Structures are given as structure tokens and as C-alpha cells.
């Protein structure tokens, strides 16, 4: 029965999803590589067996499907560094959301909640996102849980390409003092280390004060302690960033900043500590006393100080608008090349995915996009999308609705 179901699904999803790796040759593109090589004019890209096989000029390959990309830009697929794609359908409808937990904290894994049939997936894929770092939302605890990585090809059988690859926490203004939050964080780390030492006794029924944590949560924190995974810290205030840097140094862990609206004030310090920053360049509202110093050139100040920046959108539904943020960062001083890196390779390298994705580079997964204009312009859109060397339809539910009503209005 199951086999029949799946084969029906494949039939329904059109031949584009067939399990045959076709050879594809993209000709005459303006290729933005997200590497030192920068932007290559008049370039051909050959895709064989789901990987980028060759990049060069005047490439040829027998029986390849050829797309003439003259006057088109090609970029690597964009990677959403911090979204809840696959975890929520309608923000205000709790039962359509799976991004937070009342029971766990640091040990919460979102992997089992991911919905590859969400309408957000084709929507954001058509916007240019081919891979998403899927994170839990801030819940009842300072620790929110762990992030996992999914490619957005929408297959029902899709598995995470990086399960529980980072832990997420928040630190800043709330009902509870931030000093109290820091104690909770410190307690978690101390408990995790003690738990590790006395694990065998605990297994034999020995007493252990878990406090606000479950064994699962402490096991997860141990992975951060052992530097197996980094800790994403959602925080905005410059002083809070400094406190978290001090904390990370005292425990010798890796952290990634997210939000970081005041990070520009301590750009040199963040650069010195080699801490990556996930940010939305357009988020310049001093929306609380944690982000009074928010400004439009946060991204370029950090980047130009040597900080690795990862550009996100604040909206999960429109995660692809990270591209608009990157374009605005360019308007406020970031180079186009660095803006593209902030949407691609910087995300891949920070999350350990750079062996596979993030650049137009021979040997990498053929996750790439053909654009009808400059990829950082809001007026541009994807024309073709490839994930693992397969062309994926650009059709979205939005376009189906559009076409129905264009016809009804006599505008088709």
C-alpha cells in the first residue's frame, strides 16, 4: 500500500521529480559564484549526476539538456540561516505550528515536526531559498532547542541534511531579569557537566537535581560544551552580546549571534572573537531598549570589520526576502559580492555545510538558481531552480490563484 501511495505522489509531482539524474548545461550565464572568483561573464555550467561538474566557457556535452542563460544571472541556491520553514503554516493558528515546546528546552529537536508539504516551501523556493536552517522559536525557557537543515525540494520523504546542528537560545529584555536568564544558562552548563561526570550513578538510580532541565536537555547542552555544535544566541543589546562572549569564552564554546541589532557598536570585538552574526539588515527600528542603537548599516559595518555575516529575513513566510535585505545592505555600504556570500557560502560554512553547498563550485551539489535580473534587485525573480541537479518547478499556490483570477478578470 505504501509503495502505491508514494508512486502516485511521484506521478503527481511531474517528471521533474523523476529519479533520473539528467545532465544539464547552462550556457552563457552571468555567474555569481559566491567565491573569490566573483562574477564570471559569459559562463557555462555543466551539471552531471546532481553535482556541478564543470564551470567554464564554451562547454559542450552530448545529450545534455541545454538552457541558454544569455542575459541571465546564475547564483548558488540561497540558504535561509534562521527560519521556521516547515514548522508553521499560519502564524496565529497554534495547531499549524510546531516551532516551540512546553516540555523541553535545550534538547528540543524540531526534526520530527518538519512538513515538506507546507505551502511555504514552494513559495520560498521560488523566491530563491533552496536550503533552510530550521530553528525552533523562542519559547518558555532561555533555551529554545536545536536547529536542523532541510533542502527545500518538497519531497514527502525528505530527510534533514544536518540534524540538530546548532542549539538556539535567547538573552535579553523580558519579564525575567537578564541576570536571572544568565543564571539559568550557567546552571544548565554546570548541570550538564556534573551530569556527564555522574551519569553512570544517575543511571543506577543515584540522586541528581535536574532543576529546570530534563536529561535530554542536558545531553544536548553537553554537545555544545564539547564543541560538537554551536550555540545560536538571539540577542540585540551590545552589552548583552559582550556578556555572552564572556560566557562563551569561560566555557570555551562556539557561539553565533542572531538579531544583534546593536552589534555594530562592538564590531571589532566580534571580529576578533571570530563570531558569526545572523542579521536582518533592514531591521533598524529601535523597537525596545535592547535595540536603541539599531541602524541600517549594521551589516556593512560588521562585514567591513571582518565579521562573517549571514543575512536573514525576519519573516518565516517570506524567508526569501533576505535577498531584499542583502540588496539594502548593498545600498548602505556592503559590496554585492559580500552580500551574496551572506546569503549563501557564509551560511553554509558556519553550519558546516560548505563541503556540499553555498558556492558555484565544481564538485558541489547542483543547487542553483537562474534569475531574470540582478539577484539582489527586488524586481528580479527566479526563472529556474535546480536542487541536487534536478530542475524543480517554480509554480506556487500563489501563482495558481493568480492565474485563476487573471482569467476571471479577463486579464489573462
Amino acid at each position, binding site marked *: 500500500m505504501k509503495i502505491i501511495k508514494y508512486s502516485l505522489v511521484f506521478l503527481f509531482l511531474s517528471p521533474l521529480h523523476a529519479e533520473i539524474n539528467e545532465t544539464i548545461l547552462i550556457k552563457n550565464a552571468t555567474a555569481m559564484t559566491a567565491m573569490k572568483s566573483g562574477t564570471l561573464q559569459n559562463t557555462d555550467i555543466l551539471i552531471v549526476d546532481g553535482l556541478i561538474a564543470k564551470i567554464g566557457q564554451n562547454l559542450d556535452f552530448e545529450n545534455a539538456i541545454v538552457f541558454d542563460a544569455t542575459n541571465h544571472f546564475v547564483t548558488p541556491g540561497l540558504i535561509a540561516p534562521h527560519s521556521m520553514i516547515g514548522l508553521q503554516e499560519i502564524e496565529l493558528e497554534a495547531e499549524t505550528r510546531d516551532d516551540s515546546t512546553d516540555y523541553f528546552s535545550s534538547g528540543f529537536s524540531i526534526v520530527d515536526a518538519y512538513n515538506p508539504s507546507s*505551502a511555504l516551501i514552494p513559495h520560498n523556493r521560488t523566491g530563491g531559498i533552496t536550503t533552510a536552517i530550521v530553528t525552533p522559536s523562542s519559547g518558555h525557557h532561555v533555551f529554545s532547542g536545536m536547529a536542523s537543515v532541510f533542502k527545500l525540494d518538497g519531497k514527502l520523504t525528505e530527510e534533514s541534511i544536518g540534524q540538530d546542528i546548532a542549539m538556539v537560545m535567547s538573552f535579553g529584555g523580558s519579564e525575567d531579569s537578564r541576570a536571572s536568564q544568565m543564571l539559568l544558562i550557567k546552571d544548565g552548563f554546570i548541570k550538564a557537566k556534573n551530569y556527564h561526570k555522574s551519569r553512570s550513578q544517575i543511571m543506577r538510580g543515584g540522586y541528581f537535581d535536574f532543576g529546570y532541565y530534563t536529561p535530554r536537555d542536558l545531553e544536548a547542552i553537553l554537545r555544545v560544551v564539547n564543541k560538537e555544535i554551536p550555540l545560536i544566541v538571539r540577542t540585540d543589546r551590545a552589552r548583552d552580546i559582550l556578556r555572552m562572549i564572556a560566557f562563551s569564552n569561560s566555557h570555551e564554546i562556539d557561539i553565533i549571534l542572531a538579531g544583534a541589532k546593536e552589534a555594530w557598536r562592538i564590531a571589532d570585538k566580534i571580529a576578533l572573537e571570530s563570531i558569526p552574526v545572523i542579521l536582518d539588515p533592514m531591521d533598524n*527600528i529601535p*523597537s525596545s531598549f535592547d535595540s536603541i542603537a539599531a541602524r541600517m548599516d549594521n551589516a556593512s559595518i560588521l562585514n567591513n570589520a571582518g565579521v562573517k555575516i549571514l543575512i536573514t529575513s525576519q519573516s518565516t513566510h517570506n524567508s526569501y526576502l533576505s535577498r*531584499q535585505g542583502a540588496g539594502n545592505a*548593498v545600498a548602505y555600504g556592503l559590496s554585492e559580492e559580500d552580500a551574496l556570500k551572506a546569503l549563501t557560502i557564509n551560511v553554509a560554512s558556519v553550519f558546516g555545510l560548505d563541503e556540499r553547498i553555498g558556492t558555484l563550485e565544481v564538485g558541489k551539489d547542483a543547487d542553483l538558481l537562474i534569475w531574470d535580473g540582478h539577484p539582489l534587485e527586488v*524586481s528580479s*525573480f527566479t526563472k529556474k531552480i535546480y536542487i541536487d541537479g534536478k530542475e524543480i518547478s517554480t509554480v506556487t499556490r500563489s501563482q495558481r490563484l493568480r492565474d485563476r*483570477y487573471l482569467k476571471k478578470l479577463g*486579464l*489573462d
Partner: protein
Amino acid sequence: MKNIPENKVSNVLIILLLLIHTQLAYGESESELINQVYQSTYKPDTSPRILIKNATILTGTGELLENSSILIDSNRIVSIGNDDTNNAEIIDAKGKWITPGIIDIHSHMGVYPAPSLRGNSDGNEATNPVTPHVWAEHSVWTQDPQFTLALKGGITTFHVLPGSANLFGGRGVTLKNTRSVTVQGMKFPNAPYTLKMACGENPKRVYGNRDSEPSTRMGNVAGYREAWIDAQSYMQAKALSEKLSDEEESDQEQELFKRDLKMETLSGVLKGEILIQNHCYRGEEMAVMIDIAKEFNYRVTTFHHAIEAYKVADLLADNGVCAAMWADWWGFKNEAYDMVWENVAMVDQAVNGTGCAIVHSDSAVGIQHLNQEASKALSAGLRAGLEISKARAIQWITLNPAKALGISDQVGSLEVGKMADLVIWDGDPFSTFSKAEKVFIDGHLSFDATKKNGFIRTDFDLGIINPEGDRL
């Protein structure tokens, strides 16, 4: 840019007394009295004569003029395409674009200011579903730092609405993006009042969660109709009372007619003096709201957040109702699920291009980049095969919102005699990479990106990060 000194309490009192006296003496209507008492005190100084030349001009009237010029003087637009340099300061705008000042028809700046604190969260009087008696202008905090951020994005006029918790949320106010301690000093002179109404999920969620009416969409509709019936009765009773007081001698005893602030706003709508700005997402609800307007003989000026306007674009065009839309927001609640990227373009093109499309922000971030929002909406329309020019699309954030706010005789396009509100962009305003370089309001250079102190900071921005510096 300087404003006439204000806040002279004694002057205000004298004017008030004079007005009351005038009213008693000449029998002016109460609504006229109210308009006079609460009227704008914004009066810009006389602005210099400035010729901006060699620019690409999107006039807002549907034209694109290449390599053209615009002359402004004494707060007004004097000529377009005429290089009369006589006594004028000259700005060479070669390679630059000029648009009318950008207008956002849907903002909560000032009533939901930054930083977002309980102490200044004043946008929703969510204590009763029918609050047409509250006025957004009485909540506006004039030192909201979001105002200057919007100015940097080319916003010269914006409309502040109450929130959408209520069926009738209260009166909206149109403000000029000028710095003033008083809200009266920001009010757009003689702009009509508006009334915020809200369809759909928000009222039914807010009151349904309290087990009170409305808790359903049908409860919403009953609520609107009951209020309009009340307003009709009120108008009849008031007319009768006025008739009686005309007939009877003034020294005779008569029952005093008590003004009702809720009913004053609603009757202002029924008299055509107050414009309806109706938060409404779904196609079927827009159609119902148009029916209600017909039942009580008023007009809906604009549906706001009209995610599904494309589904009823012909109905909107046929009824002369504008739709104010986002380029791409969706999914934050169920009624926002059926978004299409082409919504704005489809509304614009409906019924042989007679639709009235507006791009709005409802966001302190979005308002800073309304040109980019228009660009996204335009490019989506072009991809769908609709033929729309930039010259037309710029109207989505200039002339069309001006019309829907009843101020298009003053702003919204670059035409001789209109207020000299305009933006010089450092490139094509439909490009992500372009920024507003100079913003003029009533002929005064209100923002200049080429100068560090090229704008007036709000009180909030002073010394807030460190005592000796400014926030921006």
C-alpha cells in the same frame, strides 16, 4: 524647516472663545466648530525658489519626463519642464530621479511608536468593539523616532490609523512628516477625517476571547449595522432638536440635546465628511462591506490589507473603492493565506485599468522602503504579463493614496500649484540600490542624505545611546 511657534495656550483659549461666540452668533454647525478647534496649526515658513534640473521625473500623473526640471517656490510647485533659472537656487539632478513625496495610507507610527512599551502603546482602544469616538491624533507621540526613519525613505505624508481590534476603531489622522511638539503642528491642513473599520479575524478574536460580541464574522456584520442604525436615529433626533430650537424662542425651556461623540463620527460618515478606511482581507467580506455601505448610503473609500482584493478587483473598480495592499505579506493569520504577488497589479488593471491600487506599509520598516514594495508589486505584474509602466506604478504610493485620503488637490503628484513635496532619488526608485537623497516638504529641504545633520532629530534620538551623541 521651521514652524510657526505654537503652544501659546492663551492664544488657543482666545480662539476657542471666539469660535464659540461665532458659533452662537452665526449658528455654525458643531462639526465646523470641532474642525476649527482641532485644526492643523502647521504653517511652513515661505520656502526658497529652487530649480531642480536634468532629472528623470515621475510626475505621479502617469508621465515619465526625461532630462527635465521642476521649479518650486514659496512652498508650491511653480513649473515643470521649464528651465527658468531666474533668481533660483539650482540643484543639478543629473542621473537622479524625482518623484512626488511618498504617501503611506496605513501607518501606526506615533500611536505604536518605537520603542514598543506599554506606556506608549496607544493604538487600540480594545475595550469595546464600537469606539468611533476615539481619535488617533489624541494618541500620537510626536517624538516617535520612526518618523525620521520614514522621512529618510521619502515619506512626506502619512495616515495614522487606530488599530484593528474594533469594528469601529476610531478616527484616523493625516500627518505631514514634519517635526513638531504638538500633533496639531503635524496635521495635514484641511485633510478630512477618516474612520477606521475592521473586518474579519481581529475583532472577533479580541472580543470572542472575552466571550462577548462579536465572536464571529456574522457578529461583526451585525455590529456594524446596529451602529449605523444608531447613527441614523441620532441624526434624526439631532435634526429634530435643531428644528425645534429654531422655532422656539431662545429664552424658552427646551430639552437639551446631548452630543454623542460616537454618533458624531458615524454621522460624519453618513454625511460624507469622514472617509471610511476599512481593514478587510477577504474578498467575500469586502463584498459584504460594500452592501452595508449601500444599505446606509455611505462610501467605503479604501479596503486596507486587502490580501484578496484580486478576487473582487472588478467589484472594487465598479464601486470606486480603492484597495491598499502589501506587495508580499501573508500567512500571519488565516485570512492572509491566499496572497498573490500580483495583487496590486491586478487591482490596478481591473475593468480596463480603472482600479485604484495603493501600496501601504502598516510597518515601520516597510514605510522606509515603500518604493521597493511598489517595485516588487510592479515586477510581479509584469511577470504575469500585465503592461504597467513605472510612471503608473509610482501612483500606487503617491496619487492614489492622496485620492483615498481626500488630499489629492494638494499632494500626490508633481503639478503646478500643489504643495512642493518631492523626493530626489539617487537612482531609479524602483531599484533596491536607490535611496532618497533629498526630501522636500512644502519646498523645504527636510532630509538631505549628503549631510550628517541633514534632518531634524526627534527628542528621543538625542543623547539616548551616549549623552553626547545622537542616535542616528
